[in-house]
């Protein structure tokens, strides 16, 4: 039997309303598999590839190159099995007649991040999906739950997935007490308690990897598995110039140089990303929080906490993902770990954003099997 699928403009992150088609990566008539990158789309925040949520043959490219389209707009038609041109025409016509850009924008936002007060401070988290053993995503130094915008929806197709803003970050309270990993792990565990989660898969990026490792150390029974992406806590080296540059930067020119080091494609660091980051850095308490964390965890450009033993204990299954060209924490820290180690060639520190498709596949397979 045949099925005509409509490929539509995805919504990456809460603020995306439209995207511009950069280039088609598949030709009409070409067979595509679920998860394949079909076209590149650019938003005011970032560019990325649209992945096919289904397999089949790309029969129509509806969106033209350089065209800007609203979220939910028709990009192309993928057909499983056989379908006549007339049948496809009918589907396209029906879709276009019913589609109103921005209509139901409120509902389109779907689930929204929530806030909860835990031990006297506000923590923001974003929950999507249902079922299975929950997966919790922990961002890195200076990041927030939006660091997972290309991962969260895909991962949530198969289970409940929660991303949080650590204290000092995003829209969580900015005040830190000690500014150490135990404090951050305490918040993570308090959130699990609040959400009634006895055990979770943890996926951490950079400093969030160290938080995940430390949480597994403090409360091993609460952690089902660990996925560590460009993770801290696995070796002494860290790019001190980056940290200092990021902390000190007060304007977009000063901020650009450190941020560019995070990505393999420097063009991703655009005006909007710089402005969003400056807005975060200007908030009262952020500067203190970042300096406190950097002093505790990464003093003088050296990582102060070694959590390799948590991996080597082999109490939890561990997946380690690293960009080979990570300029913040060297991929060499993955050597000799009792873990499934995946080095993504050419990728940099923000590998979960830049190589979202590969990272999603690795994460899905890993949590599925544990």
């Amino acid at each position, binding site marked *: 039997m045949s099925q005509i699928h409509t490929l539509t403009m995805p919504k990456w992150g809460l603020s995306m309303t439209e995207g511009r088609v950069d280039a088609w990566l598949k030709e009409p008539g070409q067979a595509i598999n679920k998860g394949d990158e079909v076209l590149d789309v650019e938003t005011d925040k970032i560019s990325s590839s649209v992945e096919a949520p289904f397999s089949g043959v790309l029969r129509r490219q509806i969106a033209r190159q350089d065209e800007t389209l609203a979220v939910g707009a028709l990009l192309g038609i993928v057909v499983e099995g056989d379908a006549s041109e007339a049948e496809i025409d009918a589907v396209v016509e029906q879709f276009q007649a019913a589609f109103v850009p921005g209509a139901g924008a409120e509902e389109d936002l779907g689930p929204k991040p929530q*806030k909860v007060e835990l031990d006297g401070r506000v923590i*923001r988290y974003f929950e999507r999906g249902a079922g299975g053993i929950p997966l919790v995503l922990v961002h890195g130094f200076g990041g927030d739950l939006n660091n997972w915008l290309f991962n969260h929806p895909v991962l949530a197709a198969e289970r409940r997935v929660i991303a949080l803003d650590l204290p000092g970050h995003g*829209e969580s309270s*900015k005040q830190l007490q000690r500014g150490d990993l135990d404090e951050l792990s305490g918040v993570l565990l308090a959130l699990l308690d609040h959400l009634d989660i006895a055990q979770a898969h943890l996926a951490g990026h950079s400093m969030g990897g160290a938080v995940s490792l430390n949480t597994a150390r403090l409360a091993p029974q609460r952690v089902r598995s660990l996925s560590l992406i460009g993770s801290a806590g696995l070796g002494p080296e860290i790019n001190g110039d980056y940290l200092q540059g990021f902390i000190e930067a*007060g*304007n*977009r020119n000063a901020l650009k140089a450190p941020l560019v080091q995070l990505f393999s494609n420097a063009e991703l660091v*655009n*005006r909007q990303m710089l*402005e969003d980051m400056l*807005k975060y850095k*200007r*908030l*009262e*308490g952020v500067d203190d929080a970042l300096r406190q964390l950097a002093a505790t965890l990464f003093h003088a450009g050296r990582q102060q906490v070694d959590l390799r033993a948590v991996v080597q204990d082999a109490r939890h299954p561990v997946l380690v993902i690293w960009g080979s060209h990570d300029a913040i924490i060297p991929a060499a820290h993955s050597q000799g770990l009792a873990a499934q180690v995946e080095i993504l060639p050419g990728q940099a520190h923000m590998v979960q954003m830049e190589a979202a498709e590969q990272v999603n596949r690795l994460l899905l397979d890993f949590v599925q099997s544990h």
Partner: protein
Amino acid sequence: MARKISYQQAINEALAQEMRRDPSVFIMGEDVAGGAGAPGENDAWGGVLGVTKGLYHQFPGRVLDTPLSELGYVGAAVGAATCGVRPVCELMFVDFAGCCLDQILNQAAKFRYMFGGKAATPLVIRTMVGAGLRAAAQHSQMLTSLWTHIPGLKVVCPSSPYDAKGLLIQAIRDNDPVIFCEHKLLYSMQGDVPEELYSIPFGEANFLRDGKDVTLVSYGRTVNTAMDAARSLAGRGIDCEVIDLRTTSPLDEDSILESVEKTGRLVVIDEANPRCSMATDISALVAQKAFGALKAPIEMVTAPHTPVPFSDALEDLYIPYAAKIENAVLKLIEWSKRS
């Protein structure tokens, strides 16, 4: 967290949060409480357009209605600032500047200099600027360049609710006199504003749009007009960079020059009268320091050299509007094609 509030609410929130944080901050001016200090919400109107509404009851004794004497109360605010408190003094309309200019021009702006750097005057003068409210020639002027001309003053003119809050907090914390110009037509503008305190440093322009063909520089309300023009021009394949100065003193020269070095074309949009204005100042800056980068003459879109008209139709033509900016941009593109 960020939620949508108005420009007016953003200013009110900045005042309330800074007053809560720092007991030396207080508000004074004509009708800022409303009702001459009489109790009761009905009486506390909170300024002629309600910008300071609610503060009188939240901060007893710290929202002071003054007599209708700009010379007297602005002088009192200047004096108070030199004595270690942080007055936020409201000059209802900037058009009343003439009544108190000596206190600002010859006193507040000069103290740090005259007392060998030992005197600080942490004063904010909030004032309404701009046309569009059908308020005629004596309540509609854009006198930003008047202040910018005076060394010793810092001059701020926010274009959005986010900037209004962050720049006002910075103004209150600054140890020099700051003229904080609020465009009255922006009071109802909605935008994302974080609930938390934050401050935006002075002298840092904001890039609202990156573009390669033409640089549009403005400040205050016309930044939004420039953005409208840029969006419309984008549909015709012309890619404008839009720079919001945020503060006219200090002036972020580097950002203007950096952008013109890239685009080679400049349109300055200024709601003020054109003689000795930000428009002419920025044009001179670019002509002097980035002449080699220019591919076309500099264009200025400003009010004409007349008082603000009372007639609605004339007032609408007086204020720079998007089509006028678009025409200026197209003229530059045409010029480059011709030569």
